[in-house]
């Protein structure tokens, strides 16, 4: 097996996480201020925030109906199929639809934006998301 991890003490790398860590060559605040990063945050937030409010709202509405509207949930839609089961199926549908919508947006919009946001500030070699944390100081 490849020895990809150094056997030396890993103290420096880990301590560097917390206390006054030298920011290294990467200017995090500059990336944060960049238009690409701001665009990434804006686009992602404009989906995730309403999405979260919607799914938590619809889910908790289902739970509240289950808890407090027993008669309504027990009403028949067709033979043995009750309102409760129909609403439960909408929860399944919601999970799959939101899941796939997010996946597609992330692949098409967020990932390219994230790559551009970090590419502007680091050279090609470091732009690949593989740097810093575990690297031993050279």
């Amino acid at each position, binding site marked *: 097996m490849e020895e*990809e991890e150094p056997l030396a003490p890993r103290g*420096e790398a880990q301590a560097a996480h917390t206390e006054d860590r030298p920011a290294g060559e990467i200017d995090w605040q500059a990336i944060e201020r960049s238009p690409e990063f701001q665009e990434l945050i804006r686009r992602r937030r404009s989906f995730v925030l309403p999405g979260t409010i919607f799914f938590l709202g619809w889910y908790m509405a289902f739970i509240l109906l*289950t808890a407090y509207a027993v008669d309504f949930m027990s009403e028949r839609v067709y033979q043995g199929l009750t309102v409760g089961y129909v609403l439960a199926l909408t929860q399944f549908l919601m999970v799959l639809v939101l899941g796939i919508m997010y996946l597609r947006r992330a692949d098409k919009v967020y990932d390219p934006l994230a790559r551009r946001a970090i590419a502007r500030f680091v050279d090609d070699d470091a732009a690949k998301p593989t740097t810093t944390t575990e690297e031993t100081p050279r």
Partner: protein
Amino acid sequence: MTVLAAVNTLAIAVFSVILAITLVITYWASKRARSTSEFYAAGRGITGFQNGLAISGDYLSAASFLGIAGLIFLFGFDGFIYSIGFLVAFLTVMFLLAERMRNAGKFTIADVLSFRLRERPARVAAALGTLTVAAFYLIAQMVGAGVLIEKLVGINFTLSVLLTGTFMLCYVVFGGMLATTWVQITKAVLLMTGIFVMSVFVLERVGFNPIELFNQAEAQGQGKESTFSLGPGTFLKNPIDTVSLGLALVLGTAGLPHILMRFFTVPDAKAARSSVVYAMFIIGGFYILTTFIGFGARAVLGEGGVEAAGKGGNLAAPLLAQELGGGEGTTGGDLFLAVIAGVAFATILAVVAGLVLSASSAVAHDVWSSIIRKGQNSDREEVIAAKIAALTIGAIAMLAAIVGGSGLNVSFMVGLAFAIAASANFPALLLALSWPRFNTAGAVTGVLFGIGSALVLISISPIVWGGPPGAPDTGAFAWYDLNNPGLISIPMGFLGCVLGTLLSKERGAERSFHELYVRSETGLGAEKAAAKH
């Protein structure tokens, strides 16, 4: 229709085959689990699809399979509420945590917190949260394992717990995350196949018309004694408690250490999110099929099967399998029962292995390496510490399960684990990743408030105090009647985070927030994958 009393040789044969497969996996993995990255995170070489299967294998416990099928058999609709909560919870995980955990973390929840907070208190708090959740969940699963194996195979409870614990430790100690992952994948495939075949058998009886299955189930759920209903309110009778449970389920998954840890095993954020969607499909499909099993058990076994299915209806699914295979005493019936029992056994093994691994990572990575040895130990020493931690945790869990005995209620314990996860781990993680002002005092107070309030509320809950039979269900105090503490303890967790942050003067965490923010959103500087397996 009696539960098997004597030792079931056919079931033992099926169990042996499953154990043999898992041991081959462990042997293969054992040559690779040397570094911490291999031991905790399978070298981050698991693909999105594999991880989706493994998440399902980690998540779908015996409480999901036998427990929910049993609840649906006994109570109908109310059993399904657990399924919905368990599934919708993955949207919480996907939208709020999965990718950001992968980008910013290394092996444990504490890695994300300590990134921008003072390391020692942050790690102690996170490790405390992880260990508390793992303890509740692990003991519940071990008890479940003991009870099921005792009933299905005919070996006694203590021996069953020891057997499960020994194999679980074998996977974790010798094969680390790689073996655990592949045991979980194997289990997910076995479980989905088993439950799919059973569903086809059930649906075949009603001409593949699910509505007809509903009708027949209802026809078998009539009568004064029957608790079965196609509407809510037969199992979860206290509305406010239902809301509390619902909240704990939907936020709890996002605080389960063994599920969050799975996101460190994939190469990047893209694989992390695709694994959640695969898991959604697998888990969603699983819960639809569980409904068919529960209704099938009701339609086929009827009210007469209630006693044989035992407390909580846990044996409804195996009994249904026996009946579908041709009935008690027939070769087909015995074989189908043995196979389903084997699937249930594999289910438990995969879940407990994941739990022990996450608990041992908290002990070895956070407490031993970072706090006691202050990062001066070698990578190899940490792996050894993790193995010793796993053995210790496993031994304690086995002992607790044997001493606590079969009297512990499995689904109740799992519900509590979710409540603690949602109250202690979730608020601190979410705020560390999204609130610039958040600081160490906030994280520590939040975790302590979350765990503390959940434990105090559990200890005064009606189910713990259990009034005399027939008396109204009240806890230690007449005014408190929640069995699941989530509705109060989750806001307490958040409140603790906010109060702790605002009342302390520590502001340093704001500077490191920028780095964590950029890292978690872009994946810059994320832990890389090791070479392929």
